[in-house]
């Protein structure tokens, strides 16, 4: 018989054991496969969300309108460019709207955006609320329209430069300029993007209208000058080419997309020498995403790799069942003159069979699992499927071979040592060097160091939520894993052994004494089970706790950024005229609403965001956490606001800068819409606020809505926050149907998170966490079952001997289940300790990813209990089955084997 036939026959002879080996290995491979697929998918998601988050990819400053038009045409013809257009930005000194019968409304200085009529097709820096862009007319930004009290059809006069003749233009629409910080940033290709404070008042018109009516009155900025980014200080017209990259050109993860984008830009610049030099907003965003992607990858690997290794350990455990057969085979082969090498070859061929089947099965499960999580998203190309199957098969064969040969080696050692005094095996190098203890110590040290520096290895001075994270922090959990595993290997159940020796002294007589004595002497085997089960459960706890904390935090983070589950914003007039808050409150799925006024006020010379809130209803529309405030709980400070009509909550910086105390008078200058002028208004400081839903990270203020409206003479609030029951995106659709016709824009937390700037919170962890959790639950049951089955297989002879002496099946099974109980209890305890510690570490490292940082771990109790139940059930069922098997043990057959 050839080796292959022999190996095949071996596998078929014990179908049960072969199936267990295949299934365990398939689960291990599926875990890795799903992880790799998921990482690939996440990275592509990060790329696309990062690309989508850039409203304007490239801006090249040029000297004149003809230069802009020529260059735009040339760039747009280049392969890989979606669109390129000539655009101008310019300042205006002021605008006036004479509203017959009502009064004259003036605006302060602002900015003009001049674009071709087709601009909004491919570039999404502005959005029309009403009307459209028409030659010879002007579109007002929402804010400017509000300041001027202007509607489409009205006539508004613009003064380009103080002292010049005003130009009268008819209003053709109202828009929202959503990317003012980028559109009006100073363009210096040498310095790169430098998003600037957006102008408050913006007007949009066609390039033709601008060139004809306003440009002649303004100086033009030379293309190469680097201007300071002070808003409103731009002295003249900045002609530029704005280009958008075809997103289909950017594939793969952020790093790859970044290379592609930079390559494309360089190619275009060098093919049009001297004509365009881009300020590259796209690469800037992809660059940030690249760093985050690396962080995310490390995070995923940290989360998944231990699981895969533990699953491989289970495969080893499953292969250990072949030890008996290996012994027999070895003597058979020896009798035929074959050698150890023959046995190795046999094991190798066997692993090949097992690996191929397990690999195909595992990759199938992985692909299916990913499909379940991401229905319709991230299509699996043929290439990806082939690569996954191939990778999984290779991995499974290697894993099977490692497990099989490892177990085989144990058999060979056992053969030699059989019947001899158990010799102390030579201590491996890592034990002599105390690498386990060292790993734990370094892990603690790294953790302590990062904790001391507040987990912010790199502090980003930018207020943007970009993150530069240090990978070395991951050393802490990685080393904790390693150290804990090695330490357990070193101890080999020494504790159990010592306890047993102390208690029984080698002279046990009672059943419990005999059980303990036996367990003590099998402590190495028990420890092997404990190690695998404990680490597996620890992995599960770590994964579950981390994932649910991540989930919770991502939601909190997104809510703080957006403001609430659903946010509808519209000009105050529209909100009031359509009674939007009430309408939204009645939408099915909306749990509660609150309306607030988002406006601006000057504290001394600083313009700060000001939120007028209804202190009684604000918590029904959004969630306020105590950590947002200093000097009191959320409830306490809201009560303060309610108690003081002119009360105001200010930021810590404001308190320090103006040396304020609680109760102090604070005079603000707020815009009075009745007069169109700033008006000094008294407030009283009632507390300090650090964070507020939808507020920017820097300074802002929170005050009472009624009081604010009474001084601004705004018609009402301009934002509605809504809390939802269940899926925010679905409810948002219904809210949108009610609110959009009234001119409101509606955002929801689900969609918003998916679009948040490249942060790793973009990536939805819950999918992969679900997959992994399912694997862990299955593996936990399988691990306990394997432990029982293996124990029975190893001790068959022993149990048969006990039976031949007249021991009852109940007594014999006690030797099985007592070990199972030790492994279960030890495993659960280890899992609780190690898993929690690991989760704590990982979550602590996300401190600066999340804003606000998580203040406690979220425990997914359902999953944790499920995990424990799975382990217990797996143990229970197999122990019961083993008991039945013990009853039918062929004693004569077993006992004749010596």
């Amino acid at each position, binding site marked *: 018989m050839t080796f292959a036939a022999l190996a095949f026959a071996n596998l078929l002879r014990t179908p049960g054991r072969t199936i267990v080996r295949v299934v365990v290995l398939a689960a291990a491979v599926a875990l890795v496969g799903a992880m790799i697929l998921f990482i690939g998918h996440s990275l592509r998601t990060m790329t696309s969300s990062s690309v989508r988050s850039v409203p304007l990819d490239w801006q090249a400053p040029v000297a004149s309108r003809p230069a802009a038009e020529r260059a735009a045409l040339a760039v747009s013809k280049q392969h890989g460019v979606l669109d390129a257009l000539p655009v101008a930005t310019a300042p205006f000194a002021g605008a006036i709207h004479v509203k017959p019968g009502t009064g004259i409304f003036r605006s302060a200085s602002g900015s003009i955006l001049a674009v071709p009529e087709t601009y909004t097709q491919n570039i999404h820096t502005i959005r029309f609320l009403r009307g459209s862009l028409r030659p010879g007319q002007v579109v007002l930004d929402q804010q400017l329209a509000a300041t001027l009290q202007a509607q489409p059809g009205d006539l508004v006069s613009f003064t380009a430069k103080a002292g010049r003749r005003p130009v009268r233009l008819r209003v053709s629409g109202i828009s929202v300029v959503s990317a003012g910080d980028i559109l009006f940033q100073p363009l210096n290709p040498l310095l790169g993007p430098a998003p600037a404070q957006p102008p408050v008042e913006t007007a949009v018109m066609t390039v033709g209208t601008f060139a004809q009516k306003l440009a002649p009155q303004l100086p033009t900025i030379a293309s190469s000058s680097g201007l300071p980014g002070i808003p409103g200080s731009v002295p003249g017209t900045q002609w530029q080419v704005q280009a958008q990259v075809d997103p289909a050109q950017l594939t793969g993860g952020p790093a790859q997309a970044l290379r592609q984008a930079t390559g494309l830009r360089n190619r275009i610049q060098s093919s049009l020498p001297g004509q365009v030099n881009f300020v590259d907003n796209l690469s800037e965003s992809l660059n940030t995403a690249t760093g985050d992607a690396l962080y995310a990858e490390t995070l995923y690997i940290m989360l998944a790799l231990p699981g895969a290794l533990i699953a491989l350990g289970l495969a080893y455990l499953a292969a250990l069942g072949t030890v008996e057969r290996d012994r027999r085979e070895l003597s058979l082969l020896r009798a035929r003159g074959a050698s150890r090498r023959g046995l190795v070859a046999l094991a190798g061929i066997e692993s090949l069979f097992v690996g191929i089947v397990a690999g195909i099965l595992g990759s199938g499960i992985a692909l299916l699992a990913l499909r379940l999580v991401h229905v319709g998203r991230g299509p699996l190309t043929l290439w990806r499927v082939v690569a996954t199957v191939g990778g999984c098969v290779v991995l499974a064969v290697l894993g099977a071979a490692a497990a099989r040969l490892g177990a085989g080696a144990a058999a060979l050692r056992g053969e030699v040592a059989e019947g001899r005094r158990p010799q102390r095996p030579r201590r491996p190098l890592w034990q002599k060097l105390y690498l386990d203890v060292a790993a734990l110590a370094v892990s603690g040290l790294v953790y302590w160091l990062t904790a001391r520096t507040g987990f912010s290895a790199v502090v980003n001075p930018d207020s943007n939520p970009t993150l530069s994270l240090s990978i070395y922090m991951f050393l802490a959990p990685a080393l904790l894993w390693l150290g804990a595993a090695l330490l357990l290997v070193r101890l080999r159940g020494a504790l159990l052994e010592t306890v047993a020796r102390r208690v029984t002294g080698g002279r046990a007589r009672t059943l419990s004494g005999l059980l303990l004595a036996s367990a003590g002497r099998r402590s190495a085997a028990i420890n092997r089970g404990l190690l695998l089960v404990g680490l597996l459960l620890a992995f599960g706890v770590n994964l579950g706790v981390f994932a649910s904390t991540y989930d919770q935090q991502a939601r909190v983070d997104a809510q703080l950024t957006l403001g609430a589950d659903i946010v509808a914003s519209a000009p105050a007039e529209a909100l009031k005229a359509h009674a939007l808050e009430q309408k939204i409150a009645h939408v099915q799925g909306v749990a509660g609403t609150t309306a607030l006024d988002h406006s601006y006020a000057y504290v001394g010379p600083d313009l700060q965001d000001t939120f007028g809130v209804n202190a009684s209803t604000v918590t029904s529309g959004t969630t306020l956490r105590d950590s947002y405030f200093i000097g009191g709980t959320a409830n306490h400070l809201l009560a303060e606001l309610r108690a003081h009509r002119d009360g105001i909550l200010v930021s810590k910086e404001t308190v320090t800068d103006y040396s304020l105390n609680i109760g102090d008078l604070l005079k603000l200058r707020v815009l009075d819409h009745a007069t169109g002028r700033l008006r000094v208004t008294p407030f009283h400081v009632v507390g300090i606020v650090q964070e507020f839903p939808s507020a920017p990270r820097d300074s802002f203020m929170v005050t009472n809505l009624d009081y604010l409206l009474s001084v601004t003479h705004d018609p009402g609030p301009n934002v509605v926050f809504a809390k939802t029951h269940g899926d925010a995106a679905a409810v948002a659709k219904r809210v949108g149907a009610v609110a959009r016709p009234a001119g409101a824009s509606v955002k929801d937390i689900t969609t918003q998170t998916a679009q948040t700037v490249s942060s790793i919170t973009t990536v939805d962890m819950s999918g992969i966490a679900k997959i992994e959790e399912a694997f862990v639950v299955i593996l936990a049951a399988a691990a306990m079952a394997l432990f029982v089955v293996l124990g029975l297989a190893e001790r068959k002879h022993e149990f048969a001997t006990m039976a031949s002496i007249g021991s009852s099946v109940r007594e014999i099974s006690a030797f099985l289940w007592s070990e199972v109980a030790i492994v279960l209890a030890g495993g659960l305890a280890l899992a609780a300790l190690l898993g929690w510690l690991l989760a704590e570490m990982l979550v602590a490292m996300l401190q600066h990813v999340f804003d606000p940082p998580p203040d406690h771990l979220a425990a997914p109790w359902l999953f944790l209990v499920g995990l424990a139940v799975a382990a217990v059930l797996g143990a229970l069922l197999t122990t019961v089955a083993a008991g039945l098997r013990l009853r039918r043990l062929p004693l004569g*057959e077993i006992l004749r084997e010596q």
Partner: protein
Amino acid sequence: MTSVSACRELVVEYGHGDGRVRALDHVSLDVAPGERLALRGRSGSGKTTLLHALGGLVEPTGGEVELEGRPLATLDEEARRRMRATRIAYVFQGANLLPTFTGFENVAFAIRAAASPDAPTDPLMLLGLVGLAGKAEHLPGEMSGGERQRVALARALGQHPGLLLCDEPTGQLDSDTGARILDLIDALQREFGFALVTATHDEDVAARHDRVVELEEGRVVRESA
């Protein structure tokens, strides 16, 4: 007087189909109380099978096995267990000690299982009888082959059996040690009075017994006193 153990027309077959092996072929045998019987035969002649069958460790394909006059087939699970615990003890070739128990604990385990009022209750005393009181706390893995056989004997005594079945008790020992073990078995047999059935292929060993039954291909071919 009823025999301790007996079989009538006993047939034991292993396997099925083409691989079917008849290990015992219509064997009839009586073992009287206190009798010392040797089963002699070449390797594969069915000695071990017969010992197992007498102790109820293999199910007969045909015929009947009796223990102290009661047919084994009529005994329920618990009765069989009691029988194994208190009436029959084995000493195998490789001793079959429980590897995770010390010598003391191996004996204690058997005493516990038997829980018979007549049985000795002190493992140390029994180990003393076989001269191993000093190694009570050693594990089987830490003992020599002869020592292990002696512990097995002590364990068997702990069951206070009416019948001791020994399967090649000296098979793995050098002749000197073997002889000493056989002497020990003889001495203990005289003291405790159990019936003894020893399977062996060795004529000298067989010659030490009261009666020798010769097996060949599963059949009794000769009996000599």
